């Protein structure tokens, strides 16, 4: 399996936990107080609670059900029901490989995570969730531009899976990069990166444009399913 961009690094602050899905993989992603990021199978080895409901305490993730504490390597080191007990090393969720690059969090549940190489002069703008599949979202990009009477140029496809494309909307900005992550059959996340020289006014315009693309995409869902 390839690595998937599941979120923006900036949206996962220290002490935060999020849930990501990649195909059948349900994943808890969390950042410790000091900034270490981890991605684990979203199932506590004790009684199966989703670890994405847990809470971060310092350098540990505590499960929401019985408060078992797991350190950044995934080892359970504290079981509140038995404060004196040293838990065996076997108490550990399945660990996935995760890295951060280009402002994105990349996870690979079956092999070592690698980021797709992108230009260095980018900054992450935002993440939008579309209630449709990838193709509907892509189609909506050109149709939205036509509606608005704007020019829109689909650029290059940098990667097929996950799909990463460049787009140009000359009236607003060129060299926008969109990295898609299909997290469910009818749910796709689009991470938007722009050139670091883009003015903040233009950044807002790009953001608005994406929002109208999303409105079109979701309105068209029935047409393209």
């Amino acid at each position, binding site marked *: 399996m390839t690595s998937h961009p599941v979120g923006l690094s900036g949206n996962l602050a220290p002490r935060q936990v999020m849930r990501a899905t990649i195909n059948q993989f349900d994943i808890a992603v969390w950042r410790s107080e000091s900034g270490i990021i981890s991605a684990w199978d979203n199932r506590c080895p004790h009684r199966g609670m989703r670890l994405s409901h847990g809470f971060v305490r310092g350098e540990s993730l505590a499960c929401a059900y019985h408060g078992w504490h797991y350190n950044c390597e995934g080892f359970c080191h504290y079981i*509140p029901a038995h404060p004196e007990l040293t838990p065996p090393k076997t108490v550990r969720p399945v660990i996935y490989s995760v890295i951060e690059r280009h402002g994105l969090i990349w996870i690979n549940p079956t092999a070592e995570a690698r980021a797709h190489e992108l230009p260095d002069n980018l900054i992450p703008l935002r993440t939008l969730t579309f209630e449709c599949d990838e193709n509907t979202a892509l189609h909506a990009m050109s149709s939205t531009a036509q509606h608005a009477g704007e020019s829109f140029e689909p650029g290059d496809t940098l990667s097929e899976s996950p799909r990463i494309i460049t787009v140009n909307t000359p009236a607003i900005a060129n060299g926008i990069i969109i990295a898609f992550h299909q997290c469910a059959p009818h749910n796709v996340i689009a991470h938007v990166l722009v050139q670091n020289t883009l003015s903040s006014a233009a950044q807002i315009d790009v953001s608005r444009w994406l929002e109208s693309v999303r409105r079109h995409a979701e309105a068209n869902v029935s047409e393209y399913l």
Partner: protein
Amino acid sequence: MSAREHALKYWYPVAMVNELASGQTRETVLLETPLQLEATADGNLNASAHKQSLSVQNAFDHWWVTLSDNPYPLFKVPEAAETDRRFVPCGVVRVLCSPLRAVENFLDIAHFPFVHTDVLGAEPHTEVYKYDVKIDDTHDEVIASNIRFYQPQAAKSAEGGIETQYIYRVPAPMVAVLYKTCPQREDAMDVIALFVQPVDEETCDVWPWMALYDDTSSMADLIQFQQFIFLQDRTILENQLPRKLPIDPGLEIPTRADLTSVSYRRWLKKRGAYYGALEGR
């Protein structure tokens, strides 16, 4: 015998006795079978499935039905005959989990400080002290006893924290009965039960019921307290993976505090109660 065939031989709650007015009808689902319920003018309940009428009985303020012609007898709760108790049917909560997971959660005390924070438990009082579990041979029930746990607000009627004593009984695969220290009477224990109606293997309707010594709280407050607690459990139950209960060891890792849960799983396996269970088919 299939998991479902085994489950068919028990009685299950489908409604509270006082909630249906004469002539009122309702549809529900039991073990994947659609049921029609109708309250009759003489205060009884007609229940049918596929136009066949079913056996019905009234117990613990609920209507119980079975889909079997030859069911096991309904379990007993002797305290239901103690007329100085307050009997509180608490309504129904739909939960997207295995009926067995709902029962197991009810038998669990280690979660109190984390799920029912500052009510049924609070840090740093997280330790679960050694307790006893046995299978009662006469009634073939799981019994857990000598459980004690510090609780900031053990019941609606509790003023401040107390160390609460607990006894659990599992008299049927989808029923758990808890006896706990009564904050208002030293010589008696409150009874709180969980009656689970299995809709299918991954969906259940849960009917909590209480038999308390509490002369001060209003009925509405007692119900609200119990519902508040149970809704906290629902968030857990709907996020446990897998949704079915892993009945064989291996997938989940218990500790000493989980002795009741471990015995419950073994007891289910021994009787072939696999409906809502993941393995052991």
